[in-house]
């Protein structure tokens, strides 16, 4: 009898050791629909690299744009590891959604670009793993119509386009693109130390920028409209436009050999050339504070944002890496869209917006399209008042 008991205990011990060795861990991961295939490939690679646990992955389809909204609807049902754009960081941080990055903190900070680390940091705490650094915009153009000299200035683009009977597309009715004029001319939109919105687009400098927007709107070669207009017309009636990497494939397909990209042009303020600014954003991988397996989730997040994973992501999806070593690789340096984005990144700022900036920006843009001669000061005042919430 004693023998049996000891045998049983020994067996039980073995079982528990085995169980401790290979724990069943289920992690839910969110990414956009078109990134699922790559996500699964990388997650399986992670499981293969960590045989000490039995990993099961659940893949949820939540695009970056919806991440914070889906998360906040039901944090407990949300993914353990999910992708979000840096402009949602504040909202998620305030909802206490994100685990602070504590494991390998210094290595992660050192490996990624300063801008992307800043974008993942809220009040001095790193709250996510930078994954891409390509959420910005730049100029696409048709080499057969515009020269490298033309695309240096907005005036040059518009003049050359008019001469060739073509048009230049810019989405004036979208605050994300529209802000490039204001940011370029020294405008500031950010948060103060108390987390309140600051925006000075209605000062003297802002009025100058707005007049430059109005002058562009009044130009016969200017064509307003969103990215669908650009991808539908470039190569035909349009010779250049401002958009981001997600339309690069479509534009490459339409322009073929004439495909080219550059940083944003300069525009004229009081007879002088001013470089257009822009918003530069990153996609960040966050770990849910409600995760049942935070350590494993962090390991996965780190794996998914490693140099190798970022290079693979570029190879498969064309996303620009935030990892410094990956960004230096030859494949990325020779990609026209990513080089243009890198050139523009010197003039890009992180998007720190919590106020109602977008809707009044659209109203402002549409007002200038309808009447470029409109008095911009009251329009700007209205925009800024709504943005800072007064």
């Amino acid at each position, binding site marked *: 009898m004693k023998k049996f008991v000891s045998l049983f205990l020994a067996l039980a011990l073995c079982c528990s050791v085995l169980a401790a060795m290979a724990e069943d861990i289920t992690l839910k991961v*969110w990414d*956009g*629909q*078109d990134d*699922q*295939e790559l996500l699964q490939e990388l997650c399986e690679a992670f499981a293969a690299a960590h045989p000490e646990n039995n990993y099961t992955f659940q893949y*949820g*389809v*939540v*695009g970056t*744009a919806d991440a914070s909204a*889906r998360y906040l*609807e*039901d944090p407990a*049902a949300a*993914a353990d590891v999910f992708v979000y754009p840096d402009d949602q960081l504040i909202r998620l941080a305030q909802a206490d959604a994100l685990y602070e990055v504590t494991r390998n903190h210094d290595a992660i900070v050192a490996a990624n670009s300063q801008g992307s680390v800043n974008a993942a940091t809220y009040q001095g705490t790193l709250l996510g793993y930078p994954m891409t650094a390509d959420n910005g915009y730049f100029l696409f153009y048709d080499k057969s119509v515009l020269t490298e000299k033309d695309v240096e200035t907005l005036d040059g683009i518009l003049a050359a386009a008019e001469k060739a009977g073509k048009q230049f597309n810019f989405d004036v009715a979208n605050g994300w693109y529209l802000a490039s004029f204001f940011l370029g001319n020294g405008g500031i939109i950010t948060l103060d130390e108390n987390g309140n919105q600051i925006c000075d687009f209605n000062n003297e400098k802002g009025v100058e920028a707005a007049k430059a927007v109005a002058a562009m709107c009044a130009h016969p070669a200017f064509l307003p*409209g969103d*990215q*669908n*207009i650009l*991808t*539908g*017309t470039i190569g*035909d*009636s349009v010779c250049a436009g401002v958009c981001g990497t*997600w*339309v690069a*494939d*479509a534009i490459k397909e339409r322009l073929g050999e004439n495909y080219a990209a550059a940083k944003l042009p300069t525009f004229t303020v009081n007879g002088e050339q001013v470089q257009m600014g822009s918003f530069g954003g990153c996609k960040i991988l966050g770990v849910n504070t409600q995760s049942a397996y935070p350590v494993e989730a962090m390991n996965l997040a780190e794996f998914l944002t490693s140099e190798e994973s970022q290079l693979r992501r570029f190879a498969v999806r064309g996303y620009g890496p935030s990892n410094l070593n990956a960004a230096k690789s030859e494949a990325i340096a020779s990609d026209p869209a990513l080089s243009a984005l890198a050139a523009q990144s010197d003039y890009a700022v992180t998007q720190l917006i919590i106020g109602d900036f977008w809707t009044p920006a659209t109203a402002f843009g549409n007002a200038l399209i309808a009447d470029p001669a409109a008095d911009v000061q009251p329009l700007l005042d209205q925009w800024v008042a709504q943005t800072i919430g007064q």
Partner: protein
Amino acid sequence: MKHHVNKRKLRASIGLHTLLTILSILWMLPVFWLLISSFRKEPGAYTPYLWPKGFTLDNYVRLFTDTRLFNFPRWFMNTLFVAACSCLITTILTLMVAYVYSRLRFKSRQAIMNISLVLGMFPGFMSMIAIYHFMKAIGLDQTLLALILVYSGGAALNYYIAKGFFDTIPKSLDEAATLDGASKHTIFWKIILPNSKPIVVNTAINAFIAPWVDFIFVSVIMKDNYNNYTVAKGLYTMVDKANIYQYYTVFCAGSVVVAIPIVLLFIRLQKYYVAGVTGGAMKG
């Protein structure tokens, strides 16, 4: 004199028909545009010209075969399943409730009728977050069963058209049947229902269409469970900013395919449908 009147009538008729023609063209144009976009060869959401440069069946082929990113066949079957189930439950529930209000007399009848009417006026999505949490509490979140329950749960509140129709069926039929020994149950199935084909069809069509066009509830309940999406939610994922260029024409093809079962059902049952709406409207 008579000649003059005829001329005036003729002129009015021409004027009216011109107006109707213009209106119908305006109404048909988006549908027509959707149809030709679904056969368009060039990708992208926007083209600077109206008539496509090339036509292809590829969009439809891709819709059903390229399930790597968007599993349309699965979404279609999901929707069909949910629509069929909720159609069955809704129709039976609605008609039974209408029968009770029309034929039975009990103390709280008027009060319950009024309360149902008022409750039915609130849009269902007002309670969507609460519904999601109820579903989650009983472990039904992100399932098709939850959708069926949501689409058919409020059925009893939409009794009034069916009740109006039942009111037009002479009570003497019921009385005669009762004299012959029929129970209320028998009367409902054997006498009222065979006499109410139009309203049965009307209720069924409305219940069948709901899951095809609903976007709100399926978004709230399915969240990230991509395999259980219905067509409305699924098709919408095709047109986000990263996919719209490649998938816009496929999206159009999907929209056309979604319309097919509804249109077929409608054409087949049209004569009942019109009779059902007008029959019910005669008496409230």
